[in-house]
């Protein structure tokens, strides 16, 4: 299936979960916030959350800023 992650399109096997994706992206242990289709997806739900074809994900963290 195709998804958009932070604006890039990605090809993932059907049934991939969010936690699998985060692990694949090396973000398993990184403090991030996730927005799925413009709705916040609480961290509590990340585990085993099934992604679907066409999902748009935003994964953000904190960086230096004034």
């Amino acid at each position, binding site marked *: 299936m195709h998804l958009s992650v932070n604006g890039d399109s990605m090809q993932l096997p059907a049934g991939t979960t969010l936690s699998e994706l985060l692990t694949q992206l090396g973000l398993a242990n990184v403090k991030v916030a996730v927005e799925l289709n413009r709705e916040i997806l609480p961290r509590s739900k990340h585990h085993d959350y099934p992604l679907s074809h066409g999902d748009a994900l935003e994964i953000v963290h904190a960086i230096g800023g*004034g």
Partner: protein
Amino acid sequence: MTKIDSPLTIAGKTYQSRLIVGSGKYRDFEQNLTALQASGAEMITVAIRRVNLGQNPDEPNLLEVISPREYTILPNTAGCYTAADAVRTCRMARELLDGHKLVKLEVLGDQKTLYPNVTETLIAAEELVKDGFDVMVYTSDDPLIAKRLEELGCVAVMPLGAPIGSGLGIRNPYNLRMILESARVPIIVDAGVGTASDATVAMELGCEGVLMNTAIAEAQNPVLMAQAMKHAVIAGRQAFLAGRMPRKLYASASSPIDGTFF
């Protein structure tokens, strides 16, 4: 001193330091942390941005270097030019920081001047307060807008001294005085400070605090400038509380005139 002054209180939390610093424009996290410690600040702003996909997972993370357990993290909405983007950014920040409610709202007008867009700021402030955020709001030095932001329920109003990153100091102390005269929440000068005396002047006017980033990060020696700013804010606060001498066009002798022997 402590007898006379009371600590800065924002959203129910008290701070001994009246200096708030940023985390942008530093050479690296190490320099940022050293400057933060030198400044004595207890609150530091951060920006919310997309993670870089395919980044090295071992790459250090800002919040591992500057710990939310030691410092109050103030996520900002830098880069937002609409109320909608600012609100969305604050919600992402709240999720990222495990329900953290304190945010710095800034909605700017254009990338050239970075001047605040006060009408979008009013809209965003209202929505964020409704949604339960504690909003510290960056705005212009327009005293009516500052008053309305206070009335909307912002926990601190932060007028500019001069445009972001300009280092021009407090361009219009008269407007700040108008804002201060009727304020019922902390007024914190945000943006414009270029050197220590600018921070001292802001505090002497009666502001409750000063927020700065570029003045420290772009000094030739950021850590030393951070120390300077720590002293500058204390000096200005103490001078405000001490009550300055009156100005006179004419002199008055500091040594008595009686008793001269010549």
